[in-house]
């Protein structure tokens, strides 16, 4: 029977932090930043920059643009320091600034439409219905043939660069709102609560979007891993 492979090189699953107001350590950091301490800025950048670029990428079409959006975001953060009251968490606040800048930029570059509304998406099954026995048969709704076991694959296959880029590619091809949800939840490790708050989604909507996104990415990964391994 299947079990989760003990992938030694993957980091342990992160604890998701719940939505909080700005914490004590962050208050200190912000103070230091307001006083112009470069070390405080460096600390903040080390913490958030990579994430900001990744999230920017879910709005704009290429990495260079994402880096530009990230820079603009940092400048806006610095200019907005005096106005930040700490009622939202620092992360949420930075994200809102980022979202504004990224959306504006995306629209300007006319890459993608604003968040596609849930209503536009027709129902998408998580798995192609062809994979299951049709109605009327004794085993209607059951797998015609089982999905592959990934726990018996050599680890290099799973954690390699190619696999990684397949996942990134699959995420990039998602509708923008699904891309944003899966990026924030599964790459950035935000909690469901945080994502609902940041993207203004109901709990149910967030879950449906996550479900659709994950299903598509799994399909893409499955298609890739099913290929014969070329030596």
């Amino acid at each position, binding site marked *: *029977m*299947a*079990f*989760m492979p003990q*992938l030694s*090189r*993957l*980091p342990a*699953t992160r604890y998701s932090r719940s939505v909080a107001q700005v914490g004590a350590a962050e208050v200190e950091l912000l103070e230091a930043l307001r006083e112009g301490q*470069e070390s405080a*800025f*460096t600390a903040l*950048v*080390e913490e958030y*920059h*990579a*994430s900001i*670029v*990744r999230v920017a990428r879910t709005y704009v079409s290429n990495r260079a643009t994402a*880096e530009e959006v*990230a*820079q603009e975001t*940092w*400048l806006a953060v*610095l*200019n907005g320091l005096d106005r930040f009251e700490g009622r939202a968490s620092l992360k949420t606040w930075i994200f809102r600034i980022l979202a504004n800048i990224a959306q504006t930029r995306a629209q300007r570059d006319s890459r993608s439409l604003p968040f596609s509304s849930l209503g536009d998406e027709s129902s998408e*099954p*998580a*798995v192609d*219905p062809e994979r*299951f026995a049709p109605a009327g048969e004794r085993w209607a*709704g*059951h*797998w015609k*043939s*089982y*999905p*592959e*076991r*990934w*726990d018996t694959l050599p680890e290099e296959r*799973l*954690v390699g660069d190619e*696999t*990684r880029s397949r*996942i990134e590619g699959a995420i990039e091809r998602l509708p923008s709102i699904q891309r944003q949800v*899966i990026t924030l939840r*599964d*790459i*950035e*490790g935000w909690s*469901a609560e945080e994502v609902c708050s940041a993207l203004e989604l109901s709990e149910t909507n967030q*879950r449906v979007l*996550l*479900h659709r996104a*994950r*299903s598509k990415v*799994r399909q893409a*990964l*499955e298609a890739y891993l099913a290929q014969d391994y070329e030596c």
Partner: protein
Amino acid sequence: MLISEDLTCQELVELVTEYLEGTLRPKDRDRFEQHVVLCDGCAYYLDQMRTMIALTDSLTEESITPEARESLLHVFREWKGG
């Protein structure tokens, strides 16, 4: 599992996200797990989903490039000076 509690594989794959989120009601969670115990196909599917999520999580390994850090320090110093 009683007949009334039966779950097909096709139904199960639509519940995977709720299961992993912990939002299924206890009875539905029970039906889900009962089915996984009995069905290798769905056990493999659940495993695939978990593996995919763990691999996605690992996409965070990249950190800020030296060029970006330099560039941002420049931004900071300008902001400070201005």
